[in-house]
């Protein structure tokens, strides 16, 4: 057993460090702390943040990869390969693969198949599943069984919540002693936070528990568990949303500020670059770049040790391509804002002190742009998650072997045409995606209202 670090793993963990460093700097600056406090004063923002954190944790768990060595023991040998920590904790779902479609909580397959009984008679029947619901005695009610299996998760969730409350209470007690008694600041909506943590935690533990006995969200064409796919897809969605901004941010910042501050030919060149890039229809540019990438990957298949690495490189490429095509909007915004700020009197004062352009940018321009950058980042996130689905549909998204909501929807298109409809893949992808995008949108709304004073409420 050894760790395997894929490129995107490294990026997402370094992003975590960036985020933690950001939180640290927020703690140090009183202004920033106040702003973030007021962001979280909204119960909606608080609940959204909790949901986003959950998704991010799943993405992190999916980003630690471990190589399981061939053990020689043939019964375990099928486990040989690269797995993420998330995979390992959901190993039972990977192994409990059915033959084909089955509905959520089903005990039998979704469609009939031809059977030959021992007499050689041909009959149409619904075959029993290999794993789903097979612990039940014949004729037992599924729903009663599910209800019975709710108690333990509920108890466990309450336990964890009690622990959390205790820890939080202790922490609050400590800081409360330090806090000014006259401090009239509104308290954060902790109740909302706890309710959302509780619901998510319970839902996850409940599903996890049930998934040992049922296919909670059904299985797909080749009998893979849909819940497993949906959970694994979290990583793809979150990574595309987060890492793309990591790629585009330096470009947008450097070019936008340079164009706005230095003006003249620098501005002309940068404007030319982004107008040119902008003029190419976005999807086409991405498609063209991905096509080229595909050809390169096929021509050089010897570069990659495993399919995981190849799929990962494709994800990485996609992230870079999305980054390279999506910096223009923010760049234009930053250019305009820099033009405005460099006319403001405190910049003139700095010039009168003989400060060089780089110091002026660092001390005066950049800090006054950061709120715009932050708003753009949270706004872009949800758009990128949605874009992944469309690109996968167009055929220029992530690798078909990578679990992603886009790939799930893509498959579901044909499933919906079947009679009767196979609706659960689409449904699961919809629920997982909608929850993420909705909370991202709600959170970014709040960030925008707090950080952008010009916006009207």
């Amino acid at each position, binding site marked *: 057993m050894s760790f395997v670090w894929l490129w995107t793993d490294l990026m997402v963990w370094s992003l975590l460090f960036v985020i933690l460093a950001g939180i640290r700097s927020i703690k140090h600056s009183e202004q920033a702390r106040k702003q973030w406090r007021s962001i979280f004063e909204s119960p909606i923002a608080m609940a959204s943040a909790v949901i986003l954190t959950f998704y991010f944790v799943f993405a992190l768990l999916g980003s630690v990869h471990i190589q399981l060595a061939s053990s020689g023991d043939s019964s375990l040998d099928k486990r040989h390969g690269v797995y993420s920590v998330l995979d390992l904790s959901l190993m039972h779902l990977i192994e409990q693969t059915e033959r084909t479609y089955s509905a959520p909580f089903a005990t039998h397959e979704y469609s009939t198949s031809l059977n030959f009984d021992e007499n050689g008679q041909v009959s149409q029947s619904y075959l029993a599943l290999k794993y789903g619901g097979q612990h039940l005695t014949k004729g037992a009610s599924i729903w009663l069984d599910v209800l019975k299996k709710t108690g333990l998760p509920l108890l466990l969730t309450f336990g964890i919540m009690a622990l959390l409350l205790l820890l939080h209470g202790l922490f609050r007690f400590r800081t409360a002693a330090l806090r000014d008694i006259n401090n009239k600041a509104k308290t954060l909506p902790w109740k909302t936070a706890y309710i959302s943590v509780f619901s998510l935690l319970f839902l996850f533990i409940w599903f996890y528990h049930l998934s040992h006995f049922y296919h909670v969200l059904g299985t797909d064409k080749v009998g893979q568990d849909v819940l497993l796919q949906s959970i694994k897809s979290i990583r793809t969605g979150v990574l595309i949303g987060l890492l793309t901004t990591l790629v585009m941010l330096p470009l947008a910042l450097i070019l936008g500020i340079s164009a706005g501050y230095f003006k003249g030919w620098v501005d002309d060149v940068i404007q030319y670059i982004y107008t*040119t890039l902008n003029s190419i229809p976005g999807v*086409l540019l991405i498609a063209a770049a991905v096509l*080229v990438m595909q050809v390169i990957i096929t021509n050089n298949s010897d570069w990659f040790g495993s399919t995981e690495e190849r799929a990962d490189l494709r994800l990485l490429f996609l992230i870079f391509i999305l980054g390279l095509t999506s910096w223009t909007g923010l760049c234009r915004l930053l250019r305009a804002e820099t033009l405005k700020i460099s006319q403001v009197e405190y910049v003139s004062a700095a010039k009168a002190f003989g400060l060089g352009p780089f110091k002026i940018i660092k001390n005066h321009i950049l800090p006054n742009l950061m709120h715009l950058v932050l708003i753009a980042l949270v706004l872009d996130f949800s758009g990128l998650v949605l874009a992944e689905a469309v690109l996968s549909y167009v055929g*220029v998204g992530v690798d078909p072997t990578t679990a992603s909501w886009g790939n799930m*929807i893509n498959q579901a298109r044909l499933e919906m045409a079947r009679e009767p*409809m196979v609706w659960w893949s689409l449904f699961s992808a*919809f629920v997982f995606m909608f929850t993420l995008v*909705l909370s991202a949108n709600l959170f970014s709304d709040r960030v925008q209202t707090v950080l952008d004073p010009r916006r009207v409420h």
Partner: protein
Amino acid sequence: MFAYIMRRVLFALPILIGVNFITFALFFMVNTPEDMARAQLGAKQTTPEMIQSWKVDHGYDKPLFFNADAPGLAKVQDTLFVQESMKLFVFDFGQSDSGRQITADVYERMWPSLAIALPTFVIGLVTNIALALLIVLFRGSALDTATMMVAVAIMSISGLFYIIAGQVLFSKVWHWVPISGYTEGWEGFKFLILPIFIGVFSGIGAGMRWYRSIFLEEMNKDYIRTARAKGLSDLKVLFGHVLQNGMLPILTGVVVVIPTLFMGSLIMESFFGIPGLGSYTLDAINAQDFGIVKAMVFLGSVLYIIGLILTDISYTLFDPRVKLA
């Protein structure tokens, strides 16, 4: 005005050359003349001589960017890049890898694209602006808050879901409209209803919020206070003053899109089986047909630049302060 448009057209040239350069660089990286020759001649009996003669026949024997052997200006002119670009500039898109005339295809397929994109655009714009004005009238009320929540929810759902759900509900379950297909003329109307409806509906969330924020920003301006001090009713303020001034920021985002409507929508057309440029492009992407993709990239850029010029011109119509010079 004329000088201004001329200047913009002149400025468009370097941009289009840049676009060409990007596509040229991208495609020649993976699809070299050798590859093309092999593909055209058939993989079996290719000799270097045959490839060479194919290249000469098709003009692919020239250097990429710089022809050191040629005299004077031809050093730059007599190169693959310039030759290929020049063809695009006169809208000669050549043949696709499957041997079709791209230019003819484009002329044929842009009308079905337009048949969907234009109504979607117009109905969407009118609906969004009307809803936004209505919401602004009720600003600050519970209705406002509730509508905005719905709008966020609408924009949080991937367009693919709307299409699939729409097809399932309206075609498969209720049988109101055919699930997909296209015919010319009025007969084709029944095929267009669903894609247009879905196109409009999926855009309502984002559109309504965007226009609402524009109108609310105008509502806070000083001249609105003047208008109210004159004794105008809320409705008169909204339609007489807010809408008029809100048009300016709206134009920036909207006019630029109009020419690109010809390009159609990749997703919508492929789901509904519309034989437009969108599905044409999508098929080309899936078949890795570089000729078509390249042509579409160029066409898209030209239309976008036309859109930018139209935006500036539209400003002179709506904003008396702007004089193009």
